[in-house]
């Protein structure tokens, strides 16, 4: 026993440990490849300190950094039918859903919350890219509808934050119908003369971009976010040539006149607060402190 506990185990731990720690503490920037220390990443709102790349955010982090004091109230979304088509490819869709629910701890790819941004009461519907690529099926459509209804009910602006590859194929035509459905939903907000603001994040494509996401009174995008209708690969296969530099990036859309502004993540909260207060004829919200996100303790930070 002595030999095992005193000699072999430490040796094994020594072998394993150096590998594990950097995995947890360092992230590789997908854009420039630099390793970024996790505390720095948290401090910088998941923006790479080397190249400014805006990394994808979990939905809880996203909400936490937008609402005043990181405080918000999630609303429970009406249940929808899980697998309306009984869809099966190489795997059953119900199993894919189950996996995604276990992986993310969420029911589907959208979270709806309300709270204050710069003291303005707002409703936010944020997509969860980690859940099936943020794809829009009936449940996500339901989320947008619920958010819109809540905004009307609370006489509050609606902010939608897509991060989605598009329609969810496994719900077939019903996913396509969500394009019309969500369009009606956001129009109901606009009819009440409540601001409808879209914050386009990476990625916003397909059926999501071709419906509610492009109908905002104001369209904001995060730097570098891919925004477009057709996927780059599909386009490349169709035209059989290289795509132009920066194609479908937020800055490209800004140049083409498709969005109002590209805003750095650290300025989003102030920008949203300012826009909402201007559109609602309200005075400035007073002193807005720059966003800060709680830096969790190193050893409890496991999944986010």
């Amino acid at each position, binding site marked *: 026993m002595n030999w095992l506990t005193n000699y072999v185990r430490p040796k094994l731990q020594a072998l394993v440990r150096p590998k594990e720690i950097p995995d947890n503490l360092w992230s590789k920037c997908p854009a420039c490849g630099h390793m970024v220390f996790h505390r720095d990443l948290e401090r910088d709102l998941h923006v790479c300190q080397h190249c400014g790349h805006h990394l994808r955010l979990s939905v809880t982090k996203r909400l936490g950094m937008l609402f005043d004091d990181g405080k918000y109230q999630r609303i429970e979304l009406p249940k929808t039918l899980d697998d309306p088509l009984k869809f099966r490819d190489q795997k059953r869709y119900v199993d894919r859903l189950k996996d995604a629910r276990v992986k993310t701890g969420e029911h589907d790819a959208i979270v709806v919350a309300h709270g204050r941004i710069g003291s303005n009461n707002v409703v936010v519907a944020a997509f969860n890219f980690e859940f099936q690529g943020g794809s829009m099926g009936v449940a996500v459509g339901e989320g947008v509808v619920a958010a819109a209804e809540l905004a009307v009910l609370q006489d509050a602006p609606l902010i939608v934050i897509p991060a989605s590859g598009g329609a969810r*194929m496994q719900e*077939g035509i019903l996913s396509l119908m969500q394009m019309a459905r969500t*369009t009606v939903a956001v*129009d109901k907000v606009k009819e009440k003369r409540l601001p409808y603001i879209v914050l386009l994040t990476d990625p916003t494509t397909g059926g999501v971009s*071709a*419906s509610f996401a492009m*109908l905002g009174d104001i369209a904001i995008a995060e730097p570098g976010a891919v925004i477009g*209708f057709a996927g780059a690969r599909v386009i490349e296969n169709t035209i059989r040539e290289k795509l132009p530099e920066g194609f479908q990036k937020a800055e490209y859309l800004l140049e083409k006149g498709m969005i109002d502004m590209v805003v750095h993540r650290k300025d989003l909260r102030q920008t949203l607060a300012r826009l909402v207060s201007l559109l609602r004829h309200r005075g400035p919200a007073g002193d807005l402190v720059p966003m800060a996100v709680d830096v969790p303790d190193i050893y409890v930070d496991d999944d986010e």
Partner: protein
Amino acid sequence: MSGGMHVLDFEKPIAEIEGKIEELRRLTDTGDVNVADEVGRLQVKVDRLLRSTYAKLTPWQKTQVARHPDRPHALDYINALIEDFTPLAGDRCFGEDQAIVGGLGRFRGSSVVILGNEQGNDTQSRLARNFGMAKPEGYRKAKRLMEMANHFGIPVITLVDTKGAYPGVDAEARGQAEAIARSIEAALNLRVPMVTAIIGEGGSGGAIALAAGNTVLMLEHAIYSVISPEGCASILWRSSDAAKDAATALKLTAQDLLALKVIDQIVPEPLGGAHRNREQTIRTLSMALDAALGELTPNEGGVLRAKRREKFLDMGRVGLE
């Protein structure tokens, strides 16, 4: 009757017998009486085979029928059904997109604005119309014409037949997503009747851009889907060979869509599909369009708009299970 017509794989046994019939008919000219009997016998066989084949088309076979080159396209319906058709061009922003035809005309005596995806019927027209795949200009023209219809209190008819919106650099640069979204929004806001007919292939966002009607009709063998079976197969099965399986899984047939309450009515096709009898298909759709418009017309504009919006707001929420 089928001389020169494009023959689908599963139609080959039928085409073979029809070939025999034609051969025999040529013989009849030489005066053989027994040949007439044989022709009649074979014709019965053809009809029986057509009936049995078309009664149980698989979703993949329907996809092929829906894409049959001899199937009537939007302009075939427009030319046959719309008097005084006056095409209107351009989106007033950038250009004219011939992948979507649209204009004013008279349907059964009353003014309509009619819009349709047109893919062309020979190499030249297919190229000019970009194979029916519209760019933002097309959707912006559609929006403009729908809003004009609304302004003048004229009902809208849309004929949907497209693989989808064009995936290209220029289309993206000019805001393909926004153009589609605005077209959907415009349709949903109309205070005039809007009737949609899915006449061939209803492909993805490019289709729904023109398909948010009060009443959505669909031809018996048309398909309507969030993604093409080939596209779905290459993503979910990682092989386009699985298109058959994808077609089944996607539930893209008129019969499936009626059950899902996504469409309101199936318009029957002649025996053997629309391509076998274009005139009859056009006549049948004409009657269905007329009936649908007749039902909607007495309604007040606000009611038409509200009902259309309610219907799409409920998509996927109710009536399933």
